[in-house]
C-alpha cells in the first residue's frame, strides 16, 4: 500500500483510496460528511462521465458523482486495491 497523500480527483478509474481529510468548507463539507465521507472512509473511483467530468465514486455502498473541483478538495491516501 502506497502512503502518499493526494486528492480524490487524481484517483484512477478502478482504484481505491482512503479519505485523509476534507478541505471543503461550509455546506459542501457537511454534505460530504452526511453521505459518509469522513476520515478513514474507503472510496473507489468507478468511472468518468462521457465528457470526463464529473466522476462516479463508490462511497459506502452508494454511487455518488462529484465534479473535479469538488473532488480536489478531498484528501486521500494510498491507492490500495
Amino acid at each position, binding site marked *: 500500500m502506497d502512503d502518499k497523500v493526494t486528492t480524490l480527483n487524481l484517483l484512477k478509474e478502478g482504484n481505491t483510496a482512503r479519505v485523509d481529510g476534507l478541505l*471543503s468548507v461550509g*455546506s*459542501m463539507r*457537511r*454534505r*460530504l*460528511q*452526511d*453521505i*459518509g465521507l*469522513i*476520515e478513514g*472512509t474507503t472510496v473507489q473511483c*468507478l*468511472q*468518468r*462521465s*462521457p*465528457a*470526463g*467530468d*464529473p466522476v*462516479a465514486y*463508490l*462511497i*459506502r*455502498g*452508494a*454511487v*455518488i*458523482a*462529484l*465534479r473535479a*473541483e*469538488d473532488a480536489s478538495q478531498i484528501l486521500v491516501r494510498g491507492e490500495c486495491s
Partner: protein
Amino acid sequence: MGLTGESTGLRMVQSPKSIQRQPGEKVVALAGNPNVGKSTVFNFLTGLNQHTGNWPGKTVSNAQGKCERDGRTFVLVDLPGTYSLMAHSAEEEVARDFLCFGEPDAAIVVCDATCLERNLNLVLQTQEITSRVVVCVNLIDEAEKKHIRVDVQRLSKLLGAPVVATGARSGKGLEELMRQVERVMEQEPPAASTVQYPREIEQALALLTPAVERAVHGRLPARWLSLKLLEGDESLLRSVDTYLGASLLQTGAVAGAKKEAERTLRAAGIGAERFVDLVTAACVRKAEGISREAVRFERGDPMRRDRMLDKIFTGRVTGLLTMLLLLALVFWLTITGANFLSDWLSQGAGIVEGWLTDFFRWAHAPDWLYGALVQGVYRVMAWVVSVMLPPMAIFFPLFTFLEDLGYLPRVAFNLDRFFKKSGACGKQALTMCMGFGCNAAGVVGCRIIDSRRERLIAMLTNNFVPCNGRFPTLIAILSMFFITASAGVLGSVASALALTGVILLGVVMTLLVSRLLSRTILSGVPSSFTLELPPYRRPQVGKLLVRSVLDRTLFVLGRAVAVAAPAGLVIWLLSNITVGDMSLFAHCTAFLDPFARLFGMDGVILMAFILGFPANEIVLPIIMMGYMASGTLTSYESLDALRVLLVDNGWTWVTAACVMLFSLMHWPCSTTCLTIRKESGSVKWMLLSMVIPTAVGLSLCFLLRSVSLLL
C-alpha cells in the same frame, strides 16, 4: 414528472410543518434517505398515488394520507428524503422540524437494504430526537438478489428499535411494519441506542443537558437539543423558542450551563467546525459498526450488473450515443404506435358521429345547433381524442419505464459538464426530463437544486423542452408537412429522428439561455454538487401501465377536453357574432395577422397560441376551429384531411416550421406560470419566464421566414 391532479395543482407547492389531526388519530412520520422507496411505502399504506420514480429528491414536500387499521386511523406524513437531519438544506429542515415539533406519535425510518450503512446514519439521528422509531429495511428483495443478507434481529438489537424487512412494491412486510408502529406507540422501546461522542463532547453535554432537561420539561429531547445548542444552530433555536413560547436560553440555568460547556470544549481545542466534524463522524462510525455486524455480503461484487449497465449508459463513447438512440427509439415507438391507435380511434369517432347525426335528424334539431355541437364541438373533441391521446398514451409509459429503471440520473451525469459550462447545475437535466411530462411539475422539481441562482436558471428555461401537451402538436405537424413522402417504417423512422432533432434544439436553447442568464442577470459561478446514481431497478410493467395511463394520460386528456370544449364554444360564438361586416373572430385575427405574418404565421395561429394559454393541448384544435369558420373538417381519416384544411388556408412548409418553432418556444401555460411565481416568490421571474422563450421563438421564426423569402 409527477403529473397528476395533485402534483400540478397548487397543493404541490404547500409543505405543511404541522398537520391537522382529529381526536384519536395517530400521526406517523415517514423519514428516509432520498430514493429508498419511501413513497412506495406511503402509497401502499395509504392507497394514495404519490408519484414514485427512481431518482433522488423526488418527494419535495410533505405529503400526507390516512391509513385505517383495526378501527384506528393513522395519519402518515411522507417527509422529504434526506441524508441527515442536520438541516443543511430546506428539505432537511422540513424533515427535522416535523420530527421535532410536529409531535408525531411514531416515526418510521425507511432504509434501502442494498445500501444500509449510509441509511443507518439517519436512523441514529432520528433516534436522538424520538425513541419511538420503527426501522423499515425496504427493498429487501433487491438486496437478496444482490446476495446481501440483512440480519434483522441483530440489527434490531443493536439499534434498540424494532426493525421490519419489507418489499414495499409487493407489499411484503408492511402489515408487520404497522403492527410494530402500534407497538412503539403503546410502549416506548426500552433500550434505544445512543451515539457516544468523544469524551470532551460528552463532558460538555453532561454539563448542559440537565439544565435543558429542566427547561423543556420533557417536551423536547434534552440531549439532542443540548447538542444543537453547542453546535450553534440559530434557526433551530428560534423554532424551539416559538414552540416553547419562551426563550430557551433565558430559562433557568441554560445560558450559564451553555457557557460552561463551551468553555470545556474550548479548553479541549474543539471549535465550531471541529465540533460538527466530530459529531457527524461519531454517527457515521456507529452506523459503520452496526452495519458490519448486521449486514453480510455473500458473493463478490453485488453491484456487478449495475456497473456493467453504467459502462453502457454512461460510457465515454456509448453514453451520449445510447442517450440519443433511446430518445429516438422512444419517439419511434410513440409515433408508430400512435398512428395505429389514431386510425382505430378515428374510425370509432366517425361511427359515433353517424349516430349523433341520426339523433339530431330524429329530434328535428335546427341546423345551427347541429353545426355548433356536432360539426364544431364534437368533431374537434373527437380530433383531440384520436390525434392527441395516442402519442401521450404511448409516450408516458415508455418514459415512466426509463424513470423507474433509474436512467434519468444517468442523463444528469452525462450532461452535467454541459450544464456546468453554462453556469448551471447538472441536476437541471433531471428537471428538464420532468418537463417532458409537464413543465409545471418540472418547475416544482427544481427544488432538488440547492443553489438559488441555479434553481432560477432551471425554472426559467424549463419551458424549452416540450411538455406532453405540445408533443402531439409537434408530431402531427411533422407527419403532415415533412415526412409525408415516404410511408411505412422508413417514414416513421424519419419522423422519430426529426422529432429528436426538435428536442435537441430545445436542449441546445436551454443550454444557451442558461449560459446567457448566468452571464447576465443571474451571474455567479457553478456551485459544488453531489449527484447520487441509484441502483437500477426493474420497473413493474403492469403497475406502470395502469399508473401512467390512468394517472397521467387521462388526467391530461381530461384537462384538454375541459379546456377545449368551452374554447370550442367561445370560438364558435366569436365566429358567429358579427360586428360590422366581419365576425368578432375575424376582427381579432385580422388585427393579429400583420404582426403574425412577420414571423411566418398568421392571425389564426397566433390567436390559437394566445387562447391556448390555459393548456397547450388545444392550440392545434383552435387553429382548426378558426379555419373551419369558413369550411368544416370533412373527415377524421388520417391527418390528410387536416393537411388539406391547413394548405387551403395558406400553410406552406415555412408556416409549419414556424408553428413548430413557436410551439417549442413561447410562453409557458398558465399552470406553469403560476407555479413559477410561487416557487420563485416573485412576479418578476414569472414574467421573465414568459418573455425569454417568446423572444427566442419569435426571433427564430423571423429568421426562418426571412431566409425562406430569400430562397
